[in-house]
């Protein structure tokens, strides 16, 4: 029991520190790209920016709905299944990957729902439109995850990581990695995850939020980014496998931040995508064919290998 509590404490501590560093880095990197200096602070010091910027939303007394609570709770639940390191996972199950994906899709549904459910009315057509937008992006991801599952013959994160002790999965699955990465970038773009406030204007899924609901959506958006990066890390880049002399946990941290910085750079380089048709075009013409081809090739290799072993 004590070990469990200790683990929960560690996970929350790591997430909190990461939140702070990432939001600070996000601000600095984005501003450096745009020839600015980033937050410097006036009499309060630039280091306190992430705190003051998020705590500010609590100061305005505004009521919040049930969707905000769900959005706040579900991303934390995600981390009970997804292991940050070899020891830091609460639920050890054989079907961890499956549970994580289900939770993730549910979270997306809640997020889209909370956007369309404004205080004026609820627009079903808008909900379906946005949800189909998200779903078209998730299907290629699911296909490439399926390819990984077939490759490593497991739904358990730990087995997937352990099987990469010699070569990372990216060597066997380069196409799947590319599909996964592109869809992450577009998801971040679509959901406006990297909350960038320069003249907020016609941003797609940006809630006219205020108060705590804004804080919840910001929190969950960062945790979704963490989840996606960790998933990418575990599935393709060897997770907490140690590299030469460097120990596994440090390796995982280094990979996490490298992927995060690259993601931000990609996100800034692409301008806002607002129309549904363009995304569906991108999806059906590029991502879906690639991911299906990747899956088919893996299945064929899988069968051939089994046949070879039998002979």
């Amino acid at each position, binding site marked *: 029991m004590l070990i469990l509590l200790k683990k929960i404490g560690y996970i929350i501590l790591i997430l909190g520190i990461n939140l702070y560093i990432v939001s600070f880095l996000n601000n600095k990197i984005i*501003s450096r790209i*745009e*020839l*600015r*200096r*980033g*937050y*410097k*602070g*006036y*009499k*309060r010091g630039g280091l*306190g*920016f992430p705190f*003051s*910027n998020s*705590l*500010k939303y*609590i*100061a*305005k007394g*505004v009521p919040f709905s049930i969707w905000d609570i769900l959005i706040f709770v579900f991303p934390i639940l995600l981390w009970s299944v997804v292991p940050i390191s070899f020891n830091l996972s609460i639920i050890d199950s054989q079907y961890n990957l499956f549970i994580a994906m289900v939770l993730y899709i549910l979270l997306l549904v809640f997020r889209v729902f909370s956007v369309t459910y404004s205080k004026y009315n609820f627009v079903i057509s808008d909900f379906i439109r946005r949800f189909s937008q998200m779903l078209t992006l998730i299907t290629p991801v699911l296909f490439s995850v399926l390819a990984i599952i077939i490759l490593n013959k497991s739904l358990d994160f730990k087995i997937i990581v352990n099987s990469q002790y010699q070569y990372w999965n990216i060597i066997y699955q380069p196409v799947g990695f590319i599909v996964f990465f592109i869809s992450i970038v577009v998801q971040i773009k679509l959901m406006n995850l990297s909350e960038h*406030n*320069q*003249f*907020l*204007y016609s941003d797609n899924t940006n809630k*006219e*939020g*205020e*108060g705590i609901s*804004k804080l919840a959506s910001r929190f969950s958006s960062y945790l979704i980014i963490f989840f996606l990066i960790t998933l990418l890390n575990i599935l393709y880049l060897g997770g907490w496998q140690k590299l030469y002399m460097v120990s596994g946990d440090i390796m995982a941290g280094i990979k996490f931040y490298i992927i995060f910085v690259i993601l931000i750079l990609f996100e800034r380089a692409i301008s806002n995508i607002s129309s549904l048709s363009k995304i569906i075009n991108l999806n059906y013409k590029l991502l879906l064919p690639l991911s299906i081809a990747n899956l088919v090739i893996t299945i064929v290799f899988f069968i051939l290998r089994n046949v070879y072993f039998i002979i």
Partner: protein
Amino acid sequence: MSNSLIKSSLNIYVAGYGCCKQEIIASAGPVYDISRFGISFVSFPESADVLVFQGFYNGKGLKKVINIYNQMISPKWVIALGKCTLENLSYEGSGNNLLYEFKKRLKVDVYVPGCPPRPEAFIYSLLRLMEKP
């Protein structure tokens, strides 16, 4: 305490249009870089803390601004910017003195003179607003 939290990262809603707006947009650029004080621009009055009242108005435009001010959630502040809003620039339907009309309905915290005020003046007004208890 809560006021100082909000003031550490202000959200601005700019109402109206005109010459002063050019300078406000210039202050958002990399040369003047207003975002280094944690200030950002928003387009929903609900999520704004400061209303910047500037530019040209007629009667209908003035009604709209007051409507925007009522939609904002307190605590909220108002900055009046530029010659047109400070002096007696009378337009049709807005009475003789625009600011007098405006002040009857809401409280202005900072006045910024100039035609148009430079971006430095605009940033300085916001810093003064932050200093206020």
